[in-house]
C-alpha cells in the first residue's frame, strides 16, 4: 500500500518523524474517505431513489433529537481524538533535543546562508550528519521567509528581527530539496537550497573544506566564476568589508586597492612586499605586521577561513589594481 502513500506524500521519508507524519496523514486520509462516502453517497442515492413522482406526499420529518445529538457528539469525539494525535506528534517537532547540533540560518532575498558550529559558512548548500539531531536557529535580513524541507515534513517561518527554530534527525542519506515557503517577492520561486545528508566521514570532509561551492570557482570551467569572484564573496560575507575598502578610501584598516605587489611600510619602519605570504599572515596572525598609521585592532581569522577562502581572497586582492 506504500504506493498510495507515495501518491500523496514525498517519496522519501527523511526522518523517523517523517514516517510518523505520513502515518498520521494516511490515517486521516482513510478516515476522510469513509466520512466522505457517508456524507455524499446518500444524497446522490436519494436523488435517484426518491426522484420526483407527481402526487407523492413527503413525510413531515422536522427533527429527531437523539439522532441529531448522536451525529454531533460522535464527530466531536473524533475531533478530540484527532486533535490529541496531532498534538502528540507536533510536540516532538516543537521541542528540539538538548544535544542537537546548532546551525544558523540567515535567509535573505533570495538566498540561504548556513553557518556551522565551527564558523564556516555556505550559501544554498546545507550539509548535515546522518542520524544526529540538528537544530536550525534562523533569522531573516529583510522580509519573512520560510525554511521548508518536504522530505523531513518540517517547516517554520523565518522572521526579521527575531530568531525562530526548527529541527530534525535525518536518516535518509543523500540529497534533498530545501524550498522557501513564505512569499518574499521576485525570487521566491527560485529560492531553493540543497540539503545533503552525509555520513560521518563525508561530513567531516565537508567541514574541513567548507562546502563544494568553491570548486566551481577554481575549476576554470565557468569563465564567470573565477577565484577572484570567490574572493569577492568572502570579502563581502566574512566581515573584511567592515574595515577594508576596495576603492582606495582609508577606513579602520588599509584599503586593498592597488596594494598587490607594492612595498608597504610598517609601523616599525620596516618595508615589506605585499605578496601571498604577507596577505595570508595578515589574516591568520594579524598582530605580526601592522601598517604604519593604523591601529593593531584586526582580529584573527584563524579557524574562520577555509584554505579555499584564503586563496580566493588573495586572488581578489590581486585583481584590485
Amino acid at each position: 500500500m506504500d504506493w498510495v502513500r507515495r501518491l500523496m506524500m514525498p517519496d522519501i521519508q527523511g526522518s523517523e518523524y517523517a514516517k510518523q507524519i505520513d502515518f498520521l496523514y494516511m490515517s486521516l486520509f482513510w478516515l476522510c474517505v469513509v466520512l466522505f462516502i457517508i456524507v455524499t453517497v446518500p444524497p446522490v442515492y436519494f436523488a435517484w431513489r426518491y426522484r420526483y413522482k407527481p402526487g407523492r406526499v413527503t413525510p413531515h420529518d422536522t427533527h429527531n433529537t437523539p439522532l441529531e445529538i448522536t451525529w454531533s457528539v460522535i464527530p466531536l469525539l473524533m475531533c478530540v481524538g484527532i486533535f490529541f494525535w496531532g498534538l502528540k506528534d507536533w510536540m516532538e517537532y516543537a521541542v528540539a533535543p538538548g544535544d542537537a547540533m546548532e546551525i544558523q540560518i540567515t535567509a535573505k532575498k533570495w538566498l540561504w546562508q548556513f553557518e556551522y558550529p565551527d564558523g564556516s559558512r555556505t550559501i544554498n548548500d546545507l550539509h548535515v550528519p546522518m542520524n544526529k539531531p540538528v537544530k536550525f536557529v534562523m533569522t531573516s535580513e529583510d522580509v519573512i521567509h520560510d525554511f521548508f524541507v518536504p522530505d523531513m515534513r518540517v517547516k517554520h517561518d523565518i522572521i526579521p528581527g527575531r530568531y525562530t527554530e526548527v529541527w530534525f534527525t535525518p536518516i535518509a542519506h543523500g540529497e534533498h530539496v530545501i524550498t522557501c515557503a513564505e512569499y518574499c517577492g521576485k525570487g521566491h520561486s527560485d529560492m531553493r537550497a540543497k540539503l545533503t545528508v552525509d555520513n560521518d566521514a563525508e561530513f567531516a570532509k565537508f567541514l574541513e573544506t567548507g562546502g563544494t561551492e568553491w570548486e566551481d570557482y577554481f575549476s576554470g570551467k565557468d569563465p564567470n566564476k573565477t577565484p577572484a569572484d570567490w574572493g569577492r564573496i568572502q570579502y563581502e560575507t566574512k566581515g573584511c568589508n567592515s574595515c577594508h575598502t576596495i576603492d582606495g578610501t582609508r577606513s579602520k584598516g588599509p584599503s586593498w586597492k592597488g596594494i598587490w605587489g607594492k612595498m608597504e611600510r610598517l609601523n616599525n619602519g620596516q618595508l615589506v612586499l605585499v605578496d601571498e605570504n604577507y596577505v595570508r599572515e595578515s589574516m591568520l596572525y594579524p598582530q605580526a605586521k601592522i601598517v604604519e598609521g593604523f591601529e593593531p585592532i584586526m582580529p584573527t581569522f584563524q579557524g574562520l577561513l577555509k584554505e579555499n577562502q584564503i586563496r580566493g581572497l588573495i586572488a581578489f586582492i590581486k585583481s584590485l589594481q
Partner: protein
Amino acid sequence: MDQAISSVPRTGDRPRPKKNYLNETKGFMSWAGTLDHKRIGIMYLVGVLTAFLLGGIFALLVRLTLLTPTHKLFGKVLVTAEVYNRLFTLHGVIMVFLFIIPAIPAALGNFVLPLMLGAKDVAFPRLNLASFYLWLTGALMAVCAMIFGAVDTGWTFYTPYSTTTDGPVSLMVMAAFVLGFSSIFTGLNFIATVHKLRAPGMGWFDMPLFIWGIYSTAIIQVLATPVLGITLVLLALERSFGIGIFDPRIGGDPVLFQHFFWFYSHPAVYIMILPGMAIISELIPTFSRKTIFGYRAIAYASVSLALVSFIVWGHHMFVAGQSQLATVVFSALTFLVAIPSGVKMFNWMLTMYKGNIVLATPMLYAISFLILFAIGGLTGIFLGTLATDVHLTDTYFVVAHFHFVMMGGTVTAFIGGLHYWWPKMTGRMYSETWGRIGCVLYTIGFNMTFLTQFFLGSKGMPRRYYNYLDQFQPLHAFSTVGSWVIGLSLFITAAYLLASLRKPADAPDNPWEGTTLEWKTSSPPIAHNFEEQPVLEREPYDYRPVAAAH
C-alpha cells in the same frame, strides 16, 4: 420530470401586473438614485459578476503560467516574476474583496431578504444605496491601483514585504478599507431589518433559514470588518509615516500584523460560506418538496459558526512564530468550529431522505455543493491537525482546501441561488438543458483543477511559485486544463442566462413551488413588493397538503 416545474402562471386568479420594479420607472437616474432594494441588488449583481470575470481572467493567466515548470511557453517568456506576483495578488484581492464577500449578501440577499420577510424594503434604504456606492468606489480605487502598477504582496499583505515593496500598496489597501465599510453597512442594515421588519406572524423561528444565514453573516460583517479597516490603515501609515508597528527595522513586530489581519480574515471566510449554506438550506427543501430536517439545529449552527469563527484565527499561523500555547489552543478551537458545519450536512441529507426530488438546475448545484463542500471541509481536518499542518501549510494543499470551500462551496451555492431566483428577479426562465450541462461541466472542471492541487501540495509544492521542479509538471498541467473546463462552463452559463433575457418576462410567480414569501408575489415583483402586507400563516418549508380548500 420537467412537469414538476410549475407552469401555473399566477397563484390565485389575479392578472399579471403590467408594471414591475424593472419597468416602473425608466432612465439612468431612476437606477442611479434608486432606493429600491431590488434594483440595488441587481446593480450589485452586475458589479460582482464583472469582478468575478476579471478575477477569473487573472486566474486563467496564473494557471497558464503554471502549465510548464518555468514561466516560459514554447520557449518564450510568458510572464516575468514581477507580473506573475501581481497576477496572483490581484486574483486574490478581486475575488475576496470585490466578489465573494459581497456577492451573496449584497446581490442576492438585498433582493430576496425583504421579500422573504414580507417587508417593503430594508430598514435603511438610503444606507443601502450608500453601501453600493462605497462598493463601487472601492472597486474603482482597486482598478486605479491596478493601472498604476498593481500590487505584488499577495492578498494577505504580510509585513514587512508589504511595507517596503514598490507599488500603490496604500491605494490598494485603502480600496479594501472602503469596500469594508460597504460590507459593514450592509450587515448593519440586514440586522436591523431582520429584527424589526418581519411580517406579522413571523417569529424568529418562523423565518426561512436563508434569513438566519444572512443574519449570522451580518453579525460577523459588523464585528470583524472594522478590525480589518484599522489594520489596513495602520499598514498604510507604516508605509508613509514609519510609525513602527509592523516593520522590525523601525521597531515593529511583523507577526502582530498577521494577528490583526487574521482576526478579521478568518471570520471573513465565514462571511463567505454562511450565505452559501443559507442558499442550500432553501434549495434542498424546495426541490425535495419536503420540510427541512432540523430547522432549529441549522439556525443555531449558523449563529454559533458566526461566534466561534472569532476565536480560531491563529490556525493560519501555526508556523508563523506565535507562542506554542497559542498554537495548541487555536488547534483545539478549530476542531470545535468543524462541528456545526458537519451537523448541517447531515440535516440536508436527511431532508432529501424520502423526499420527492426534482433535479432542476438549482438542485444540481446544491448536490454539487454537498460533494465539493464535503471535500473542502474534510481537508480542513488535515490543516487543523497540528503535526500535519506543519507539512501542509503554505503549500498547494491549502490553496486546494480554500478553493474547495470558497469556490466549491460559496460560488457553487451562489450560482445555484442565481438560477433559483432568476425567474423572480428577471421574470424569465432559462434553458433547463443548458443549465444542467453547465453544472455538470463546472463540477467536472472544478475537480480537475483543484483535486489535483491537494496532491501537489502534500508532495511538497509551495504556494505562490511561478517556477517549479519538473516532477510537478503533470499535475500542474492537468490542473490548468481543468481551469479551461471551468472557464468554458461559466461561459456557457453566462451565455444561456443572458439569452434568457431576450424572452418576454412571463415566468410564473412560483415555478419551483417554494413555500417562502418571495414566491407569493409576481415574477418580477412589483415595485413595493407585495400588493397587500403578507401575513405568515404557515411555517416555511411546510409541504403538507393543505387540509381544506379555501
